[in-house]
């Protein structure tokens, strides 16, 4: 089975989904579940095979694109497959959750298309081996994320947030592409695998390229200082937050750093940057999350914290650090996606996400309460859950990192804070006291069982993976770390390490986290730190507004609606460019063409015709008369064409002149007579420009007659015409055969132009409501 088949199948399902789900929801659900279950099993199998030393899989269609600049080539190392398993596994749960979340309502019908496109794109990102192919999928995830964040598209805030996420990740993506292309230029290949090989062989990539690629990664993973888009993306429906903005898409940046780790490792500066940005992101997430009262926002900020920690561990870069990163990432994908789903379920049942108003739901939603508690405990690192494995190794790594205890202190603070926040989300709504002004636990909306599947399955996954970590995860983590690190590394994970300093620190974390949770409450109001950190978003907004107002004042000057101004600009610039070119090429003088013989009197006759009717055009006050005079000139030109042996041209011009008149007459019907409203001085300027253009065009026409830089192709085309295209009329053969693609483009353009005119003219009444791109108040 080709490696890219799952991507294509997912895209197919996405294309079918809007009408399928509307017509037959049950069979759509079955098909989606089967597909994702199949993909999950497939990738788990591949991952197991690769982990136990199997060969790295490749899949490509070599001749799909006729250029090396993009190739349809895929590769599945352990790191990619780990992501693929997370994407399909959590994808399946989110898919089911979304079916419950939207229920039968029509609102959900558009949803699955974007969600499945995202899933396919994300699989593409992690499986692509060619840099430009990866970039394409990368952008596709940003675009589908845009549509998903703005899913409630009638809300101004959702649209603004979606645009923000798209712009921030999009700008990063473009930087990343520039970095890819620089590297491709430098090394002569765009394959990730070859790049890793080059870097491991000791060739250092250009630093600028690395910085650009890193920019792509940190914008995508919402690292400092671009963190602000992620919490804002919470205006998406909860399935999206759970899937894109916690489990998968935001980890794409981490994935990229892991994929190109050997490259980043060649520069110490880059690694230090990663550590610093990662640490700052972690602390930012914690500080901003601390004051939040919205369940989803809290989860978003803790996601930021974890993303920062992952970046920091990637930046430290030793096999031990990478091992911790992989473990933390797996754990996070499980519990965070589950917590999001649980928060969404609470929101759905009570209609409220405010921590201050929730409480006492334990009896009403027992299963959800237990599942969220299990997830929160995994997050807190309670033995023997999966989170415990990650945290235990993190502390062990901290103790082993040398004499500096800075890392340990940092990890302790983050872990403690995150635990308190996790308890706020998972404990307070269920086991906390029910506030008086909160929703009544007795009158909740019923929840679809589909919405409980995700949290429950992920809780169980946390338990099972934690207990089986030594046997199940060891080879896989070893293989993944070996790939990131680029050298063979062997691990055996243990759940129980005996009574070591790390264990005591773990216990201290649990105790402190509990104490912090009990003794503090979020009040929703900001403080100095949150205001300072909000400044980064303010900077983004200022840039956005500046760009917008700059653009509008720019077009206010250039596109001011004064047609005379446009013509003046156009003609003077043409004049200036041509004169400059002429001057710079040495003002070659014009020699009149020779051997043309005497001009027949019929053609001389056209000269007074042109003169008289041109004069009439510029002096008449009647628009219709001017039009007719213009048409006469057109007819005279058509006559010249016919005389000079271009019957096709003459025929076309004749017909076009006719239609121009007809269409123009419709237009000028309602216009008043021509009046002189321009002062004399500017008329003089206009006359000067017109005369200059006339002289220039005449000189150019004469010049082209004598200049021949390339061999003419007309004789070759005439030769080919009948032999290759079975046509004796060369003009027509060029139009419909030799250059048919141009003609296709042209008829597309005229069709669009006609539709455009139609829209402007008939439907172009000013709309009552227009979308605004200003931030919500």
């Amino acid at each position, binding site marked *: 089975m080709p490696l890219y088949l799952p991507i294509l199948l997912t895209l197919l399902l996405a294309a079918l989904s809007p009408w399928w789900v509307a017509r037959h929801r049950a069979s759509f659900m079955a098909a989606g579940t089967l597909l994702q279950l199949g993909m999950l099993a497939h990738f788990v199998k591949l991952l197991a095979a690769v982990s136990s030393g199997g060969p790295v899989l490749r899949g490509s269609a070599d001749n799909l694109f006729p250029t090396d600049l993009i190739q349809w080539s895929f590769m599945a190392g352990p790191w990619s497959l780990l992501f693929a398993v997370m994407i399909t596994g959590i994808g399946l749960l989110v898919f089911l959750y979304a079916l419950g979340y939207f229920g039968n309502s029509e609102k959900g019908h558009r949803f699955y298309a974007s969600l499945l496109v995202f899933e396919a794109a994300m699989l593409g990102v992690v499986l692509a081996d060619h840099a430009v192919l990866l970039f394409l999928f990368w952008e596709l995830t940003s675009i589908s994320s845009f549509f998903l964040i703005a899913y409630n598209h009638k809300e101004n805030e959702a649209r603004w947030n979606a645009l923000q996420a798209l712009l921030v990740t999009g700008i990063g993506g473009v930087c990343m592409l520039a970095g890819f292309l620089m590297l491709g230029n430098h090394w002569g290949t765009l394959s990730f695998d070859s790049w890793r090989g080059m870097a491991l062989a000791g060739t250092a990539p250009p630093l600028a390229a690395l910085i650009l690629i890193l920019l792509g990664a940190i914008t995508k993973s919402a690292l400092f200082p671009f963190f602000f888009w992620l919490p804002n993306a919470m205006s998406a429906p909860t399935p999206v937050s759970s899937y894109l903005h916690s489990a998968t898409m935001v980890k794409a940046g981490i994935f990229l750093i892991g994929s190109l780790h050997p490259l980043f490792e060649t520069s110490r500066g880059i690694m230090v940057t990663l550590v610093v940005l990662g640490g700052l992101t972690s602390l930012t997430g914690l500080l901003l999350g601390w004051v939040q009262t919205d369940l989803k926002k809290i989860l978003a900020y803790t996601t930021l914290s974890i993303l920062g920690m992952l970046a920091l561990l990637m930046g430290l870069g030793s096999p031990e650090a990478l091992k911790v990163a992989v473990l933390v990432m797996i754990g996070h994908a499980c519990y965070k996606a589950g917590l999001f789903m649980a928060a969404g379920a609470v929101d759905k049942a009570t209609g409220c996400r405010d921590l201050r108003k929730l409480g006492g739901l334990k009896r009403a939603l027992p299963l959800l309460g237990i599942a969220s508690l299990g997830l929160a405990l995994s997050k807190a690192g309670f033995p023997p859950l999966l989170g415990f494995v990650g945290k235990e190794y993190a502390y062990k790594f901290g103790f082993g990192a040398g004499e500096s205890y800075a890392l340990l202190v940092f990890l302790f603070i983050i872990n403690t804070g995150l635990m308190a926040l996790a308890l706020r989300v998972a404990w307070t709504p269920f086991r906390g006291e029910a506030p008086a002004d909160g929703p009544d636990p007795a009158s909740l909306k019923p929840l679809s069982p589909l919405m409980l599947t995700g949290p429950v399955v992920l809780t169980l996954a946390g338990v099972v993976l934690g207990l089986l970590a030594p046997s199940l995860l060891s080879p896989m983590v070893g293989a993944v770390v070996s790939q990131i690190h680029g050298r063979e590394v062997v691990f055996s994970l243990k759940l129980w390490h005996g009574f070591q300093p790390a264990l005591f620190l773990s216990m201290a974390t649990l105790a402190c986290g509990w104490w912090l949770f009990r003794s503090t409450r979020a009040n929703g109001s900001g403080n100095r730190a949150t205001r300072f950190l909000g400044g980064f978003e303010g900077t983004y907004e200022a840039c956005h507004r500046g760009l917008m107002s700059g653009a509008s004042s720019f077009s206010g000057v250039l596109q001011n609606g004064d047609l005379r101004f446009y013509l003046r600009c156009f003609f003077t610039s043409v004049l200036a460019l041509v004169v400059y070119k002429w001057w710079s090429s040495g003002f070659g003088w014009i020699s009149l063409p020779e051997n043309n013989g005497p001009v027949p009197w019929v053609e001389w006759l056209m000269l007074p015709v042109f003169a008289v009717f041109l004069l009439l055009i510029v002096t008449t006050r009647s628009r219709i008369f001017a039009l007719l005079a213009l048409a006469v000139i057109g007819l005279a030109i058509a006559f010249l064409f016919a005389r000079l042996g271009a019957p096709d041209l003459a025929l076309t011009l004749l017909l076009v002149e006719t239609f121009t008149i007809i269409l123009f007459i419709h237009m000028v019907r309602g216009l008043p007579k021509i009046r002189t409203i321009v002062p004399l001085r500017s008329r003089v300027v206009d006359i000067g420009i017109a005369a200059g253009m006339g002289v220039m065009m005449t000189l150019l026409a004469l010049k082209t007659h004598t200049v021949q830089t390339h061999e003419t192709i007309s004789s070759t085309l005439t030769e080919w015409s009948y032999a290759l295209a079975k046509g004796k009329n060369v003009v*027509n053969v060029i*139009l*419909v055969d030799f250059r048919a693609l141009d003609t296709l483009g042209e*008829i597309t353009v005229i069709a669009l132009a006609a539709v455009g005119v139609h829209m402007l003219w008939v439907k172009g009444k000013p709309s009552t409501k227009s979308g605004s791109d200003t931030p919500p108040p």
Partner: protein
Amino acid sequence: MNSVLLHIAARFLSWPLLIVSIWILYRGHNLPGGGFIGGLLAAAGFLLYDLSGHGRPARGFFSLSPFFFLPLGLGLAVLSALPGMLGGGTFMQGVWLPGFELPLLGSVHLGTPLVFDIGVWFAVIGFILLLNGTLAGEETS
């Protein structure tokens, strides 16, 4: 416009214009003509018909909307580009049926470029009809 002369002239001119237009379209491969010129001529026939006050305005003889002609033309043009690829060639490579003799027309060569030209013919008709209908302020949809 209510002019008896125009009315009668249109009756006698519209159909011949359409026929001439098809003839011009067909002969374009070997003699002056082709889809663009033919399309303009056909559109002229249609407009003449409308101007004389027949039937519903801006729709031509067949009461067809320009929004029928435009996609039809573009679709035919794109379709004509595909057979070349099926034969293992490139996009838009010409594919020809074997030539045969017909009375009146003489030796006939049919191929994808002719289909393409027919696409151009339809697109041009749609273009003119839509522009004219729009600018003349008529309901076209």
